[in-house]
């Protein structure tokens, strides 16, 4: 799985979770860039990502994740 492919699938997940077809995420996208991305939606997002990529993200990574770039790193690391 390439980084670009992960971003493509992530965009789909973000659009579904935030109910917004316009969302395009990048390496530096954070919760400040998406209006509805609060602590509750953060977990919704993590659960949706876990379903999309079929693995569990450890709690430690969920708490410390700072931007979408880091999320992609985790997906590439755990999806091997």
């Amino acid at each position: 799985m390439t980084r670009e492919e992960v971003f493509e699938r992530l965009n789909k997940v973000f659009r579904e979770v935030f109910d917004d077809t316009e969302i395009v995420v990048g390496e530096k996208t954070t919760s400040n860039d998406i209006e509805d991305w609060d602590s509750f939606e953060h977990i919704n997002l993590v659960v949706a990502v876990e379903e999309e990529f079929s693995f569990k993200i450890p709690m430690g990574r969920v708490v410390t994740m700072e931007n979408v770039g880091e999320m992609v790193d985790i997906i590439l690391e755990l999806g091997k």
Partner: protein
Amino acid sequence: MTVTSFYFLVFIVIGAAIYYIVPKKVQWLILLGLSFVFYYFSAVPYTIIYLLLSTLIAYITTIAIEKYRDKRTNIAVIACTAIIFNIVIWFLLKGNSFWSHGVLLIEKTFPSVHFNMSVLHLTAAFGMGYYTAQVIGYILDCYWEISKPQKNPFKLFLFVCFFPQLTVGPISKYSQLECLYREHRFSYKNICFGSQRILWGMFKKLVVSDRIAIITTAIWADTISYSGVWPWIAVFLYPIQLYGDFSGCVDIILGTAEIFDIKLPENFNNPFKSCSVQEFWQRWHITLGTWAKDYVYYPVLKSKYLISIGKWSKKHFTKRIAKLIPWTLGMGVLWLVMGIWHGSVRHIAGVSLWYWGILVLGEFFGSVFKNMVEYLNIKSESYSWVLLQRIRTYAIFSAGSVFFAAESFRDALFRYQTLFASIKNLNPWTLFDGTVIRLGVTWGDVNIIILGIFLLHKIDTLREKEGMAREWMQKQIVVFRWGAWISLFFLVLIYGLYGPGYEASQFIYQGF
């Protein structure tokens, strides 16, 4: 030894002198020694064994978690046992209001049953709520591999008992306090900035908060003489009193730590600027909120039960409602834990239930409210609208604080009853007829309170805009800078309310 006492200032001066003289490698040992001295003079000395016990549990279990992580041992069981141990110790010593009534009821109902209640007479450790929260956070951080376990038990003990934060927090994460073990160079800027922050904290507590406390206490002590508008004044003044007290103490603590070149996390960020209750709780007691979010709210939301409820809701309700159901439950657990941490049923039933209810109502009817604003063509960006929202948030917090400020559940209900009854005979003219003098303050005190509230507002706004009000001050011309600090110093010295032996009254949040 309270942190507003003269002895504490002497203690800091001597402590900082030793700290910067000794070789840098042993600086953390000086902090540990100072923490012991502070504990000895501030609490019942033997209760330090509870801190030692918590540290020991955390030390052994986190080392075990690391050792058995890759083996087939269930490390979750080890982490859970350690957390439960800490909660049980806290529950027995600090949360006795939860179980003592139950035990008495059982003894009354079944006369043949008798419990040995000697635990009731044991004194809880100083700052138990704060350090227990830190220890639980540390165990989970190690379990989740956010932090590496501390191999030196004495260094871990310093994380638990670091002296400034035992009074009222902040609740730090282990990663935020790893700086305790580093080498620290003497810096004139740290000493200046730390002292300035201590002075500002003293002003908030001794000049503003304690002065307001005279008024609010006198009103609630005699609601017959002070009826009409007065109970309402007490209710609306209390948030400022609490803010001055709590954030003032936090300023002293953060300033003290700064003198030792330790940066503790901030606990407040201009809370009365909040336009919603949700925003308010992101600006008020931030470290408790972050702790509850990371170690309670996230794990609950990510548990298989809540995920299943979320999936079930998606099948049976609209997308919006389906999201609100697990959110409401998650928030319920978060507020329940916050209520329990405050240590009484009154806090759970009054304070927690109140905010949880307001937040849930806000989420469920948020879209209706939004549509109404659009329909009425209200300019939501306008200052007047923002101000109205801030006043609304302040009023909600004031109403919730009645339960917090009351001495018991019954007292809280009495206060609400008094408030509603007093609407019938509002007497605003008594504000100017000298009634205020009978409350135990002078017109001069009233003016100082008004000036204090004005300064609090200005400094908080400046801090939010500039990052640090003291940095802004540093850029000003020398006459202004020194003039301002000297004035503040004399304001605290002359107008600070000192009790017998120059010991100020206790801090409201010191009891947790």
